[in-house]
């Protein structure tokens, strides 16, 4: 009698488990081990557009936010983290994640490492950390989606802001690093796209050597031409930080200092943004940066997939992913571009103190979606891989 009762209990619990049938959506976040971007001195500088802390913070906030929603849908998400020391170990971590049953891989890695991960697995990869245009263009991959805006999108947002102010004559100052050169090309393309005028492009160098002063002194660098604004391309950020108010003409600085185009700023006041920023800073005791927003959006994408199909399986989530829309607290539902996997989104123009404007600027027209005035558009056909 007693044995029979036990058996029934056991059966009941089996039935229970099967009835709930919550399949856990597993995702693995791969980031660099001993991330040089997160060294104390760098974090203390709090340069706009640079990470303010680990990407996991943003993803975890999205999952914590969704506790109720996941429970109501009978869905579950498990996020694991895999630090990578090299491109090889990033690849190995991705392969291990796929073997371990992960549905998606999230990366906060340099462009080459991101590509290695995307090529190593058959899973969808969400890119949170690489803004490089080549990942959306010549090196795009069919299952690689991007949450962080591309460099071109940021440059286009600045160009639009300049158009709206009629500040059309520009002096471009470009740093010495390879990313500086690539990003300067993006800036020049945006200047051309929006019909602005480039009066001169000059290289700068971070130095106090009197023999190099023509390259290093802001007064000398900004003399000899008339212009409406100075556009500075400085991936490192140290030179750009010291440029505003040190130009020979009283002109605004844009680009990597002065007015900067970002996916997010903690002072954004509209569309419920303050609540998101407040939840983030409450959880991890630091302001929410644009990188954190991209990570938060990756988490929200996982939540959208899991709640829409709580039972999965992985293949169903992979299929649903490109058509998933997410709410990024920027006033519109955000979706992925079919041609390059980029999340289309408004950008914020900030001086670091507040949000001065948003892009797309008002009045700009586009045949299908005004958000596609930022970054590579479909007719350019820059991403050749089929999706």
């Amino acid at each position, binding site marked *: 009698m007693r044995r029979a009762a036990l058996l029934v209990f056991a059966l009941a619990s089996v039935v229970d488990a099967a009835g709930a049938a919550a399949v856990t959506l597993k995702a693995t976040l791969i980031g660099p081990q001993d991330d040089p971007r997160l060294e104390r001195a760098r974090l203390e500088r709090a340069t706009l557009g640079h990470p303010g802390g680990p990407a996991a913070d943003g993803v975890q906030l999205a999952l914590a936010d969704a506790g*109720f*929603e996941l429970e109501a849908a009978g869905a579950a998400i498990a996020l694991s983290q895999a630090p990578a020391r090299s491109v090889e170990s990033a690849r190995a971590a991705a392969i291990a994640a796929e073997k371990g049953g992960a549905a998606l891989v999230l990366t906060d890695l340099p462009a080459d490492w991101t590509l290695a991960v995307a090529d190593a697995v058959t899973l969808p990869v969400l890119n949170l950390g690489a803004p490089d245009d080549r990942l959306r263009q010549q090196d795009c991959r069919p299952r690689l989606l991007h949450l962080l805006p591309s460099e071109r999108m940021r440059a286009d947002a600045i160009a639009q802001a300049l158009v709206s102010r009629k500040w059309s004559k520009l002096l471009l100052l470009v740093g010495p690093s390879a990313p500086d050169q690539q990003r300067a090309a993006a800036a020049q393309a945006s200047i051309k796209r929006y019909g602005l005028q480039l009066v001169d492009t000059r290289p700068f160098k971070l130095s106090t050597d009197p023999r190099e002063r023509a390259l290093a002194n802001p007064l000398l660098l900004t003399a000899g031409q008339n212009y409406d604004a100075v556009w500075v391309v400085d991936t490192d950020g140290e030179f750009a930080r010291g440029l505003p108010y040190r130009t020979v003409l009283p002109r605004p600085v844009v680009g990597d200092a002065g007015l900067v185009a970002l996916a997010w700023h903690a002072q954004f006041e509209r569309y419920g943004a303050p609540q998101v920023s*407040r*939840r983030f800073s409450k959880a991890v005791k630091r302001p929410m940066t644009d990188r954190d927003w991209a990570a938060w959006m990756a988490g929200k994408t996982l939540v959208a997939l899991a709640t829409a199909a709580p039972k999965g399986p992985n293949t169903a989530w992979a299929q649903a992913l490109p058509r998933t829309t997410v*709410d990024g607290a920027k006033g*519109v*539902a955000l979706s992925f571009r079919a041609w390059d996997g980029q999340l289309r989104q408004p950008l914020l123009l900030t001086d670091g103190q507040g949000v001065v404007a948003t892009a797309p600027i008002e009045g700009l027209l586009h045949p299908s979606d005004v958000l596609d005035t930022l970054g590579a558009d479909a007719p350019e056909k820059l991403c050749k891989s089929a999706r």
Partner: protein
Amino acid sequence: MTLTTTRLLRCAAASLLLMLMLTAVARAQSPSGTVYVSSEKDDALTMIDLATLTVKGTIPTCKRGRHLQLTPERKLMLACSDSGVADLIDPASGQSMRHIPLGDDPEAFDLSPDGKTLYVSSEDDAAVVFIDIASGKRLREVKVGQEPEGVKVSVDGKLLYVTSEVASLVHAIDIASGKVVANIKVGKRPRRMAITPDGKELWVTCELDAGVTIVSTATHAVLANLKFEVKGARAQDITPVGIALARDGKRAFVALGRANHVAFVDVAARKVTDLVLVGKRAWNVALDKDEKRLFVVNGLSDDLSVIDVPAAKAIKTVPVGRVPYGVVVVE
């Protein structure tokens, strides 16, 4: 007293009488009352005279006032996000009567039919808090999805509906037990709600879905999703928030946010009959007693549009405070 002064006095008396008579006539012809508008950045209510449609003054309030509602005793109640209180204001005196503590970052609220209990969404805590108005005591806290927003009490006062902007859910909460009895999946970013006068349908505006989700209050099933279309505006620019229903339940008025229009909806047919152009980011709406005029708060142009309802046309724009939010008509 000279003859001239007597004449002057008589003349003055006569004109005074005439003025009084004229005022009386004017009163009889046009409604007397006040439109109150809360604004997020002024810590004040703007008062607009219903007859002349001009600003007649302001009332200082608690800080960052947003949701504004009339209590059953016809007092104004304003929830202030920064102060964390509800300001109870007597419209007759224009004075604050008392503050009721609401906790951190209160957003919207509703009152029990007897006016004794207040249900407020607390955005930061992802909860709905029940508060006894007389004592100001917190009676209960019910956890809900992130960023709870709109709060609505059912017609019989037994159920509480709360929207969660992040979870895209409407939670139905049994007031007596404080238990969530249903989670209703609606459109993206649900904001505000209205219940038809027969109590049968719950209309939920969905900001990022360009629509309204209509829910059966009996079964909690979604009956329909009404989508708005505005010529010249794309779906992503149609962001409905504020909603009001006519007393007979035949018409709904929905503010379409960044589409800068208000939609008049035939409730039974679930069809848009008119679209009225208003100011920037049309937010919350309120009707006057005769339902001849609809007042629309425009969050991004700091003004209030007045719509002539029978003509379906905006007839006047009145400048109000910075980032106006809620509106209530007292007649």
